[in-house]
């Protein structure tokens, strides 16, 4: 045995143990989530929606939010029209929600984090005076009717940051959307729910999260990275405030349909992830060391996970090369029978949330989801590899949203209850079209 072989065995063992850590956590994702006791609505919320030219989808969301199962007086909807050049602000206004327009200064980069920061600056001290919590959604989202009721329960319990279940509007469009959706189903249960049960902190998923207004004011929305949600999570953990998980309220978002668009989105996430890793890892380790905070260690392990993924992929390549060239100076630590067991477990991992949380029972669909997610996973490897070297590139490339589905259609699809009252959104849309036409006419005259 030489130095390289021995080091590679140790390295493989460490990689597997690291993987074993996630495996251990995942075991706590089985079974139904614990429901919180019913509470009467008390907490006041601001629902914040950054939107950039989202006229196609924003209407459905605003309509959906206006009809949440929560007293109207206890929440406000504020759409941030971020550099909009379409009818987004007018549409929102007509639907009865508030709009705040944001135009980026020439020296400031564009993107969602800057829009949120601008809105918070504009709201100023009213934020803590008028609201107990701020929930953030993307313009393409749809939200289950019980969202605010569930957030109310969490806030009354004392939680400061709560992330809800991240569902998908379009899992059946193609393999890309299916892979995306599946990875979220999987993460919701075996990552987020499991961590909650273990008393660890969850991670904000970019949308559908609700933050205590005082905490938000204290930390602010720094907007320094491409994954400001991850950065905010780490900042909370560094203050000893965990992110909590709510499995019973859902937000549906639109997954990108094209593989290219998904790559662009994931590249942004990957760059942001690396950026946060390099800026916060040492702080998490310090906290873990000096305050014996297991949550900080766990967050650190999460941050370095892409590194592990890239290293594992390179090790696999090395093993494959070694095997095909009969070099034999390094052997795989995992025997074939273990691989078989892992593949079976992988299938179960995917199948369980699809059956229990989404209600899919077709074996073929689950198998398709497994294959799609595998393909998507392997395409992550080069993205994370490349992102490592380009992590300083902070250009925000937005993902286009085109799925105009109403919450009632979503409820029909998912079988969920969530609509308190229905407004004919189509009617408003028609009105908007008439306004646009008359404006055009006036201009012509």
């Amino acid at each position, binding site marked *: *045995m030489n130095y390289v072989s021995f080091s590679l065995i140790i390295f493989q063992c460490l990689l597997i143990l690291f993987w074993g850590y996630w495996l251990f956590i995942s*075991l706590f994702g*089985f*079974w139904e989530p614990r429901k919180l006791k019913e509470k009467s609505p008390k907490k006041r919320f601001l629902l914040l929606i950054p939107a950039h030219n989202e006229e196609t989808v924003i209407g459905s969301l605003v309509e959906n939010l206006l009809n949440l199962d929560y007293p109207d007086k206890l929440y406000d909807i504020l759409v941030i029209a971020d550099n909009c050049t379409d009818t987004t602000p007018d549409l929102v206004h007509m639907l009865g929600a508030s709009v705040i327009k944001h135009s980026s200064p020439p020296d400031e980069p564009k993107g969602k984090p800057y829009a949120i920061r601008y809105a918070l600056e504009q709201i100023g001290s009213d934020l803590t005076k008028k609201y107990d919590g701020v929930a953030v959604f993307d313009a393409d989202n749809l939200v289950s009717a019980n969202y605010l009721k569930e957030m109310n329960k969490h806030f009354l319990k004392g939680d400061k940051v709560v992330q809800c279940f991240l569902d998908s509007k379009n899992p059946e469009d193609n393999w890309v959307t299916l892979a995306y959706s599946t990875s979220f189903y999987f993460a919701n249960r075996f990552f987020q729910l499991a961590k909650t049960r273990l008393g660890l902190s969850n991670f904000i998923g970019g949308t559908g999260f609700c933050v205590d207004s005082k905490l938000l004011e204290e930390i602010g929305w720094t907007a320094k990275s491409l994954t400001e949600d991850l950065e905010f999570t780490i900042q909370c953990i560094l203050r000893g405030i965990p992110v909590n998980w709510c499995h019973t309220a859902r937000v549906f978002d639109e997954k990108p349909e094209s593989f290219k668009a998904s790559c662009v989105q994931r590249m942004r996430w990957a760059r942001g992830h690396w950026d946060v890793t390099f800026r916060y890892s040492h702080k998490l380790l310090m906290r873990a060391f000096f305050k014996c905070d297991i949550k900080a260690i766990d967050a650190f392990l999460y941050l370095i996970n892409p590194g592990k993924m890239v290293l594992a992929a390179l090790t696999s390549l090395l093993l494959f090369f070694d095997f095909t060239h009969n070099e034999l100076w390094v052997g795989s630590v995992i025997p074939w029978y273990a691989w078989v067991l892992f593949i079976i*477990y992988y299938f179960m991992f995917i199948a369980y949330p699809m059956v*229990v949380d989404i209600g899919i029972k077709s074996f073929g669909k689950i198998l398709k989801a497994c294959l799609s997610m595998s393909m998507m996973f392997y395409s992550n490897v080069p993205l994370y590899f490349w992102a490592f070297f380009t992590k300083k590139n902070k250009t925000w490339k937005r993902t286009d949203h085109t799925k105009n589905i109403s919450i009632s259609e979503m409820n029909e699809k998912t079988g969920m209850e969530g609509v308190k009252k229905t407004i004919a959104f189509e009617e408003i849309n028609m009105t908007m079209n008439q306004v646009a036409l008359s404006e055009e006419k006036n201009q012509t005259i």
Partner: protein
Amino acid sequence: MSLLGRLFIRKNIVPPVVIAIVLLFSCILFPFTGKAVSFAPENKKAHILVAYSTKDGKVNEKVRMLDMLLSHFSTHIVFKSANDVKQNDLSGITHLFYYGAVQTKLPQSFRTLGNNFKGSYTVIGANVGQLKDFDFVDATSQIPVNALMLSNGRQRSLPETELIYNTHVDPPAKILIKGVNTNGDHPLLVAKGSRYYFARSDLDDLFSLFLAEGLHHIFNEKTLAVHPAYLRLEDVHPMADPKKLMAVAKFLEKKHIPYMVAVIPVFKDPKTHKEYHYSDAPKVVKALKYMQENGGSIVMHGYTHQYRDSETGEGFEFWDVKNNAPISGDAGANEKTPNQQTFNNAKSYKLFLQKQKRFEGHYINQKLTKGIQELTAQGLYPLAFEAPHYTMSLEGYNIVSHYFSTYVGQIQTSNKDWHVMRTAPFVTRPSFLNGMLLLPETIGYVPEKEKNGVEMMMKNASGQLIVKDGIVAGFYHPYLGIDRLKKLVNQMAKIPDIKWIDLKKLDNKVLAANVTITSGSNGLHVQSTLLPHGDQLKSLGDKLQKATLLVVLTLVGLGIVLFIFGMVRNKVLDREKELHGRV
């Protein structure tokens, strides 16, 4: 008294001059005292073309036997079917051999080329009547002989009566070797000028020995009668008795006899399926190291010396003896190897053969690499290779040649039958071993239950002395104890003109991933990037690997159980919901 003589006396310079002359002659007469020791003359001037006639026109085990003999004299050898020999094939050739292994009609082109060839031309076996240059012999029929005899009168009896071509020789041709029967003697090797004829097709046993001696005449080699010899301690594995090894080592050290130790890196117990490596046997390693430092040279004798469920030391490793076929699958896999009849068509069979060769290559490469690495990690430096029971396919020898420059033992010359086992009478470098030096074993071993084992070996040794540089080499199992070894060594030491081979002083090169071992006049050198305690670390790595797997597989197992319970529970809840819905 001559002027020179007076000068010597007057100037009192006799002693230095005499010493100088003696030293000069010593150097000429005893080539073994030179810098690099070599037992194969390797006459670089001789360029040999062997034209042969075989049943299918391909090189077979008979031709390979001839290869083993000729390669003692030169490494420049080309083998070609007589049907394919062209004029330019003879360019630069100093020695032409025609080997008629079967009766056939030779093409006119070859006959003409042979007639016009000016160098040494030797014909062996059949078809000599078609060659004009050999009209001095008339070999049309065969006669039985029961002994063979050199021109100096030394003869050896054949175990059974054998046939040779009944050769009538016209003068002035000379008879160099004869076959003897009750009616008198008959020419076996005859010479007329630069033309030689050997009146036998099959070159087995004693015939190859006598032809080997005749080749010295053909190649005009003035080799002195020095018999290289070696003794090999066989089948030393990690479960060997270190006390017995030490006793043998001390005895041979005392005798100042260099020797070889054929070591097996892994002992596999077929009952428990446990493996014992040298890292598990520090006392055995200590004894082997002592041997290595005091006259012994390590020879790698396979990796486990077993296949399937056979025991280490007993089983074959590189040949599937059950099916009498090359290794074609993992030990424990298909007991029965398919043959051509098993397949529906030639294409399927060809595909199977390709797969078999790939597997065999991987199997041998893996074992050789591991063996060399494990031994090196223990400070034991193998300098040569010996296949278990001498069995291996020709592809196998080719693979071995990429790791070892020296092979020890006998050679399986057929790719179809392991029983076709041949040895060379002297040190040689056969072309089919891809450049490896062959140190052949020629006198056998002491069987455990044979009381006269040593005597049998000595009888074999006397046969070897027919060839002036014939090698006397045998092996001994150290577990038999010291007594019979003492007897064997004392007997071997009495053989006239014996010269013990010290493997460490031969030019050897061993290459494997992370290991390079060389030996020769500059001593033994090892270059290794293996960890100093590689085996211990490997064992640590294995434990760590097992522990890691145990942890992860336990978690996976728990996950599967939870999944099953979770799914059942979900089903029950669904049913309850349905029932409530109906109510």
